[in-house]
């Protein structure tokens, strides 16, 4: 009876936490010949067929501060709602001409007010603009699964808790292109994949 209980417990853990129990880390470096645009590349696991991922209930946030969108690049899981804040003492607007994001225009609003938009379609790289200040720009990268990250200032990145298996790892950058790579994520440990960005 006791062994049956242990078995049931282990089976339960395996079902619930198989993803994290048998998950590895993907890390690497993004390089660009000019070494000026290593940051702000989105590295993500390409579509995982047959799997559906629930969007987070907590909204993501993009702020507008000192006439700049913060963050500049925001990857989200499809179905995520993004709250657009205005922390400036001037009016701001948020719109996107990209059809995959619904070609929305949230209007114009002042400090302290928040407007929201839900990004439904995956594989969408939506530019976010403010028609009051045309120099302002951000990108919402909408992805099919939650295994993504934005490269840091030195170009390094790390995606944790990727379920073990073979995947295609892709990279997206607002100006540059990189070649997808195949990775075999171990059940435990790390796999390395570097990217070279080119025009």
């Amino acid at each position, binding site marked *: 009876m006791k062994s049956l209980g242990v078995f049931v417990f282990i089976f339960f853990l395996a079902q619930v936490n198989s993803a994290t129990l048998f998950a590895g880390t993907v890390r690497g470096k993004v390089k660009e010949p000019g070494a000026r645009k290593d940051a702000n590349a989105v590295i993500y696991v390409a579509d995982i067929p047959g799997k559906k991922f629930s969007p987070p209930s907590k909204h993501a946030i993009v702020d507008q501060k*000192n*006439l700049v969108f913060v963050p500049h690049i925001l990857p989200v899981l499809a179905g995520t709602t993004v709250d657009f804040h205005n922390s*400036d*003492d*001037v*009016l701001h*607007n948020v*719109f996107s001409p990209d059809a995959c994001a619904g070609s929305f*225009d949230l*209007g*114009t*609003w*002042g400090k302290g*007010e928040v407007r929201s938009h839900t990004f439904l379609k995956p594989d969408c790289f939506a530019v976010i603009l403010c*028609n*009051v*200040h*045309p*120099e302002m720009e951000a990108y919402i990268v909408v992805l099919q699964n939650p295994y993504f990250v934005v490269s840091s200032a030195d170009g390094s990145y790390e995606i944790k808790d990727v379920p073990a298996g073979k995947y295609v790892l892709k990279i997206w950058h607002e100006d540059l292109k990189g070649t997808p790579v195949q990775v075999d994520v171990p059940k435990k440990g790390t796999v390395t994949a570097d990217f070279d960005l080119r025009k």
Partner: protein
Amino acid sequence: MRFLILLLTALEVSFVVPTTPSYAIPAFARKYKTSCATCHTGFPKLNAFGEAYRRNGYQFPGGTDREFTKEEPVSMGSKGNKEAFPDAIWPGSIPGTSPISLMMNGEIDYNPRFDADNPASVSRFTFGGLGSSIEAIAAGTLGEDLSFWGHAILNSDGSLELNRIFLIFSNILGSDFLFNARVGVFEPDLFSFSTHRAWFEGYWITMRPFSEDMGFTFEEIQKGLEVRGIVRKRFAYAAGIVEGFGPPHSNKDYYGHITYKFGGMPLDGVVEEKSSAGPSRPYFDNSMTVGLFAYRGSSVIGPDSAYQSNDFTEVGGDANVYYGPCNLFGGVGIRHDDRPFVGSLGSSANTADWFGELDVVVFPWLLPGIRYESWKSHMRDPATGRLVAFTDNQIVPGIETLLRANLKATIRTVISKLESKGETKHRLGQVALILSLGI
């Protein structure tokens, strides 16, 4: 000067003197690292925010200028010196980088009234004016509530014209730009529009002189002092004393202007509740601004050997309506000149002039507009010497196209009937393609 010429050559662009200097200020764009479109709906025309920025002495609304400034200014004294005053100089600063902007304008003209038999007639199609000038504008703030403006035009013949040069002292009394002063050489603040901030410059009401003898215009640069301010966010006033027209003389010109804005962004640019739920555009500012002005002038006209005084008074008003992408505005002036005709001391004259203009933002970069102007006045018949009445009118259609936020191409023409020149029907005037670049 040599640097400017070299720069112009290096850019391989050829430009001409614009009909009127225009004012979009790339130095401000650099200061805040923001686009021209933050303040302009097709430069140099200001949107509601840009108008507030101008009224605030080239400062962001609500005391936030320092917050938005991204080019660190160079201190001319720490703010602690305020406490040490009068034993220390009041603190200030200068812009961190050069506050100079360059404006270059080029023009290609087609003249349908070309007369091949008249050697003085301009060519039917000409590039002739290209490469004749470049404008340099220095503008910015010297710390809190002290602003400056300077403007020079360098012509290809080597001549240098100095245009507006002034200082603005803001918030002298109270706060929120209640009482400010401007001193120097400037354009009197009489209207809610300006030919220098328009898609199609050259408004008769502000730019047309009464006659060759009486060359005064409202937008002639005036030397003097002006006080102005904003009361309760939507009411604005201005009053000034300026040198007036002609050689230096004892009597000065006086003027006053009041204006009120209904709806839209307040005149000081501080927005408290305004927001739009649906799609919006920065040039949407559903509002109506109305204004009244009075100007009393004392000019000196005539040749050096026989100066003659001409006192004149003009009263009028203007209205400026924004609705969606449309902007309908106009002005009217009624003027009386005591002695505007040289040698005819007993002859006075009345003038009534008005205009209406419709500007439409089809796209943020495609900006058509059309203006109608009328000028009803008196002139001296050269044959009989008697006064005769005349009415001139013109239609000014045009399209401004923004190729970039700081580069525009404007096509405009004039269809006019000038009774003062003996014309009896409307005729097409010069068609001009004007290129303007600000850097």
